[in-house]
């Protein structure tokens, strides 16, 4: 299993699923108790983020230097352009078309984060492809 990346990441996925199930069980049993809900959410999301970062660190170390450079360049230029474009869309929606923003505050917050993250991801992908196409 140690040398098989599919089995390794499958194992990690299984561990995360079990951790999610345990968190769900604890939430169902004690979630109504005052103050416990945010702790469960913070713990579960923190665990998921830590697992994701661990996978990213292993993946990053396996890349060669040109591949790392492509990602660093894409992270800077692609994500920065994405952030700027996403910001224009967000502020336009906020001030030019406020009638479209009729959801709950929580939904609006998540939609805004998803919009910025989505546009940044698209920018990242375009910049990454551009870096490699320039070096073919």
């Amino acid at each position, binding site marked *: 299993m140690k040398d098989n990346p599919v089995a390794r990441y499958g194992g990690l996925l299984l561990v995360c699923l079990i951790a999610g199930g345990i968190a769900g069980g604890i939430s169902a049993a004690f979630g109504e108790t005052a103050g416990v809900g945010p702790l469960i959410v913070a713990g579960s999301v923190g665990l998921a983020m830590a697992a994701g970062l661990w996978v990213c660190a292993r993946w990053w170390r396996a890349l*060669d*230097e*040109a*591949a790392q*450079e492509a990602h660093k360049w894409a992270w800077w230029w692609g994500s920065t352009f994405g952030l700027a474009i996403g910001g224009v869309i967000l502020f336009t929606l906020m001030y030019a078309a406020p009638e479209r923003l009729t959801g709950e505050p929580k939904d609006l917050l998540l939609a805004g984060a998803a919009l910025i993250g989505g546009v940044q991801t698209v920018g990242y992908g375009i910049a990454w492809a551009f870096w*490699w196409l*320039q*070096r*073919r």
Partner: protein
Amino acid sequence: MNNRLKVLRAERNWSQADLAAALGVSRQTVNALETGRYDPSLPLAFKIARVFEQPIESIFSDSGA
């Protein structure tokens, strides 16, 4: 920066994949190096020199010089 990677590789009848395996990088990286569109780090340049058993300065030259 200019380099003689393609020539040195051809002299040895190596494919880009062979050189990539010897250097521990991807074939795309070898291609980017050969076309001169990616300059290697010092550690990778030293590794290239070791693989071809030549001094660095005989493989790489400054295009501005």
